[in-house]
C-alpha cells in the first residue's frame, strides 16, 4: 500500500505572519485609541453643557440679588460681591409688625422721593447683607450669616463682577468662566484667568439696581 502524501501542509511564512500581526495591531490600536478619545470627547462635551448650566444659575442668583439691592460693592479682585438689600417683607419683631404680628409676611410700601438724580427709594427699615464669594472651588452666597453653596465643582468656575455707579443709576457687569476639560492653550495648567480656553467659556450679564433707576 502506498501512503497518500498530504499536500495540505502549506501555511503562512514567518514574514507573512509578522506583517499581518503588525497591520492588525496597528488597526486595533488606532480603533482603540480613537474609541477612548471619542469617549473622552463626549465626556468633555457633557461636562461643558452641565457647567454651562451652572454658569447660568450663578448669573441668575447674582442678578436677582443685585436687582433688588439698595447698593452693591465689589472687591478689587472682582471675586466678592456685597449686596445691601432692603427688608422688603415685614417680619416678626419689626416695628411695623403690628399688634399680634398681624402685618408679618406683608410687603412693605416704600417712600419714593424724586430728586434731580432720579428717585430715592426707602423701605424704612433695616437691610440685609448678601455676600457672594469664591472660596477655593466653591461659590458661596451668605445672607445675614446664613451660607448657601451656589456652585462647587472641579471645573474652576470663576465669577467676576464690576460695579459701576453713575450719578443716577448703578449696575453690575458680571462674567462667569470655567475651565473646560479639554484645553490646548495658555499657561499649561489651565488655571490662568486669561487662558484662551477659559475666556472662550465666558458668559456675560448686566444687572441694574431697581432701587436706583432713572425716572
Amino acid at each position: 500500500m502506498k501512503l497518500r502524501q498530504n499536500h495540505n501542509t502549506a501555511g503562512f511564512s514567518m514574514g507573512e505572519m509578522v506583517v499581518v500581526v503588525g497591520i492588525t495591531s496597528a488597526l486595533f490600536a488606532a480603533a482603540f485609541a480613537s474609541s477612548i478619545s471619542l469617549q473622552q470627547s463626549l465626556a468633555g462635551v457633557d461636562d461643558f453643557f452641565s457647567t454651562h448650566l451652572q454658569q447660568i444659575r450663578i448669573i441668575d442668583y447674582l442678578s436677582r440679588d443685585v436687582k433688588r439691592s439698595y447698593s452693591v460693592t465689589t472687591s478689587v479682585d472682582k471675586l466678592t460681591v456685597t449686596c445691601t438689600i432692603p427688608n422688603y417683607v415685614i417680619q416678626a419683631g419689626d416695628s411695623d409688625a403690628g399688634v399680634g404680628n398681624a402685618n408679618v409676611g406683608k410687603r412693605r410700601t416704600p417712600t419714593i422721593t424724586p430728586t434731580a438724580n432720579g428717585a430715592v427709594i426707602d423701605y424704612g427699615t433695616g437691610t440685609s447683607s448678601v455676600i457672594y464669594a469664591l472660596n477655593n472651588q466653591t461659590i458661596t452666597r451668605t445672607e445675614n450669616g446664613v451660607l448657601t453653596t451656589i456652585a462647587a465643582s472641579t471645573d474652576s468656575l470663576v465669577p467676576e463682577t464690576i460695579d459701576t455707579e453713575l450719578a443716577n443709576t448703578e449696575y453690575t457687569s458680571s462674567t462667569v468662566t470655567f475651565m473646560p476639560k479639554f484645553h490646548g492653550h495658555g499657561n499649561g495648567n489651565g488655571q490662568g484667568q486669561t487662558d484662551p480656553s477659559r475666556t472662550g467659556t465666558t458668559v456675560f450679564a448686566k444687572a441694574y439696581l431697581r432701587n436706583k433707576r432713572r425716572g
Partner: protein
Amino acid sequence: MRMRFQGRYEDGFTLTELMTSVVLLAGFFGSVFELNTVCLRYVNASKENVAAIQGVQDRLEVLRSLAFTDLTSTSYMTTLLTTPSNSAALAQRAVETVKLSDYIAGSPSVTYTRAAGANVTPTISWSGGASFPSTTTLLRVNVRYDWTTTFAGRSRSEQTESLISAGIKK
C-alpha cells in the same frame, strides 16, 4: 530546472479588494470622527444660544433703566445702540433689532437695526409717525438678535420683550 513552489506566493488581494477595504475603513473612521465634530459644534451652538439670550436680556436691562425721555429720544437711542449690548463675541456678530412701539395702540413705532460689528450706527425706521407723542407713557420694547450659527451655518434668532412705563419706577 523547475522551480519548486512555483506560483505558490502569487495569491493575494486584488486592487479592487484593497480599495474596497480601504474605503470601508476610511468611511468607518470618517463617520466616527464626524460624529465627534458634530458634538463639538453643538457646544459652539450652545455657547451662541446662551450668549444671545444674555445679549438680548442685557440690552433690555439697559433700556429698562433709562429715563423715559431718553428711551423715546432717537438721538439718545442711536448713540446707545452704537455699541453692542455686552462684551460677548456674538454681540458683535449678530444683527440686533430694537423695536419700540406705543402700548396698547402699537403705533407709532420705531425700529433700530444695528448691523454686525463692534461700533455700528444703527439705522432707524419709523412707522405711524416720526416721534412718540408726549401722551405716550407706555412702550412695548422688543429686542431681537439674528445671527448665522457656526453650526451648519443656520440662521438663528433670539428675542425678548417687555413693557416700560414713564414715571418713577421701582
